[in-house]
């Protein structure tokens, strides 16, 4: 059964009243890969994940996980999938150890085995010192780690991670990424949602970009980035009236069309190669155009969206993910 997909979803649909949150999404996640679902708030990422995890009824379409029908066999699906939510789904009134013990017992482990697994996971996720503390004293990063640990008790072959690093500081985020990479070496398949292009880039083998309940692109992170340009040179001219002149210099040097904001003298220049930034700066110096500030930025989700959908990520219909 080597060709069996971890997830195969066709035409998934979810309506909340008149609002169609998910509008015919197809997904195919191969075994052993990290598959990223990228999109802004309200795009339908969480809703899609929750449907696949049997937490929301599927209104239309068909979904299978390792060949098991999600709609017809929810109990089987729950044995195959570990879910780590956007909001840590652990018990606030219990300690870390008690949480793990409870979830292990609920999944049919004996008392002694549940205890051993809790010890193991606490160590693996660097939570031993906080094991007996009530969760109210936990930091955001510790909660996420405990949440992830709780999803791994029975070593499910498929793990759903809903925005695993949203709201975490950069250092904790890096640790989380390492942990996620480790999971795949165990043979797990991971489906994760994220709002961050660099997170998808760091982790995912393939990425589906979701916008307003539809899939607008699916590719490797590298291919997606090439569509957008690797990075952007952001310039601010000393004299705003020079923008037209500066634009000519850029066109001549790079053959790229800069995005201008003449009022403030700003221009954003897509760079096929970050090396070329120097060419532009030298070109402007030679043309006698002064610069007041300069920076090189990686493409943001907003730019990916602009490139793929023609509108930014911000003008999405605001809609709290259905809980």
């Amino acid at each position, binding site marked *: 059964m080597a060709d069996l997909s971890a997830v195969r979803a066709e035409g998934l649909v979810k309506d909340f009243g008149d609002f169609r949150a998910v509008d015919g999404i197809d997904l195919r996640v191969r075994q052993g890969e990290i598959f990223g679902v990228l999109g802004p708030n309200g795009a339908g990422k969480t809703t899609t994940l929750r449907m696949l995890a049997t937490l929301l009824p599927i209104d239309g379409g068909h979904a299978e996980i390792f060949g098991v029908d999600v709609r017809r*066999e929810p109990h089987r699906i*729950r044995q195959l*999938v570990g879910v780590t939510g956007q909001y840590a789904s652990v018990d606030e009134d219990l300690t870390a150890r008690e949480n793990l013990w409870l979830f292990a017992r609920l999944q049919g482990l004996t008392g002694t085995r549940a205890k051993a697994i809790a010890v193991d996971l606490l160590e693996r996720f660097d939570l031993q010192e906080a094991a007996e503390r009530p969760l109210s004293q936990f930091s955001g990063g510790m909660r996420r780690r405990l949440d992830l640990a709780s999803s791994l008790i029975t070593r499910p072959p498929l793990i759903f991670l809903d925005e695993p690093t949203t709201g975490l500081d950069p250092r904790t985020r890096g640790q989380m990424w390492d942990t996620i990479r480790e999971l795949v070496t165990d043979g797990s398949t991971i489906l994760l949602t994220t709002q961050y292009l660099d997170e998808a880039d760091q982790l995912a083998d393939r990425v589906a970009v979701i916008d307003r309940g539809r899939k607008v692109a699916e590719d490797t992170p590298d291919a997606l980035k090439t569509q957008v340009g690797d990075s952007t040179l952001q310039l601010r001219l000393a004299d705003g009236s020079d923008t037209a002149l500066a634009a000519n210099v850029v066109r001549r040097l790079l053959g790229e069309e800069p995005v201008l904001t003449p009022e403030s003298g700003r221009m954003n220049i897509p760079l096929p190669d970050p090396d070329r930034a120097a060419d532009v700066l030298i070109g402007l110096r030679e043309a006698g155009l002064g610069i007041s500030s300069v920076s090189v930025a990686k493409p943001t989700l907003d730019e990916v969206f602009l490139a793929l959908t023609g509108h930014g990520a911000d003008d999405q219909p605001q809609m709290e993910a259905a809980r």
Partner: protein
Amino acid sequence: MTTTSTMTPTTFKPRRIDPSAVVAGTTSRSSVRETWAQVLAMAWRALKKMRRKPEQFFDVLIQPLLFTAMFAFIFGGAISGSVSNYLPVLIPGILAQTALTVCMATGVQLREDMDKGVFDRFKSLPIARLAPLAGPMIADLIRYGIASVLTLVTGLLIGYRPGGGVLGCVGGVALTVIAGWSLAWIFTWLGTMARSAQSVQGISMMIMFPLTFLSNAFVPAETLPGWLEAFVKVNPVSHVVSAVRDLFNDGAVTAEVGWAVIGCMVVVAIFAPLAVRSYSRKM
């Protein structure tokens, strides 16, 4: 963050996960034994929470003390001529009222609990949908027990001398606990249906007050107008109260006891499936 553990090297096997093997090992529903283990695990969780939040016990501690003393001294003379004559009527009534109050808390707390993040995990786990409902109710048996015993003790302190002796009292308390647990399914069902904990509280109040006051809990049914007497006589709370009176005051297992137990079983048979169905649908 290392993968290996030196303390228990056998539990987290470095063996790779084989999805087809896992799929082959799945079952389409929890067996009865699995369900029982899950219910017990959920009961353990509820007990832990009770220990951490003793303020939950406010209702089971205060109400028996306050209401027993208050009602005895206020209504005793008017209804039965004297406080000591009223106590045999009142104590079983207060017992039923207290049990119903505790039931109500069961529904409200379930609703509050369901809004918490951890219920998302319960839903995502392969557990019987009955477990998150039945677990806390088992832990609540302790609350019914405390409330009943406390009511009885308060009664004894202000002069109640039950004719049924120790056995009758044990029987009466046991019946109250059973009745409370059974009726709690109604409120659990409400808890799974309502939008918020406040609305559960509101609806429960509207059910609880007529059920307790339109019964023979505090006054003899014969003193009521005919139409009201008719309702009081079919009110299941009346049967429980009469049965507990028979046990406490006479130590007699009468037909009322039988009716009360049958009534409780009917309530569970109707509302337990309704609650589980409504809970599963919520997801």
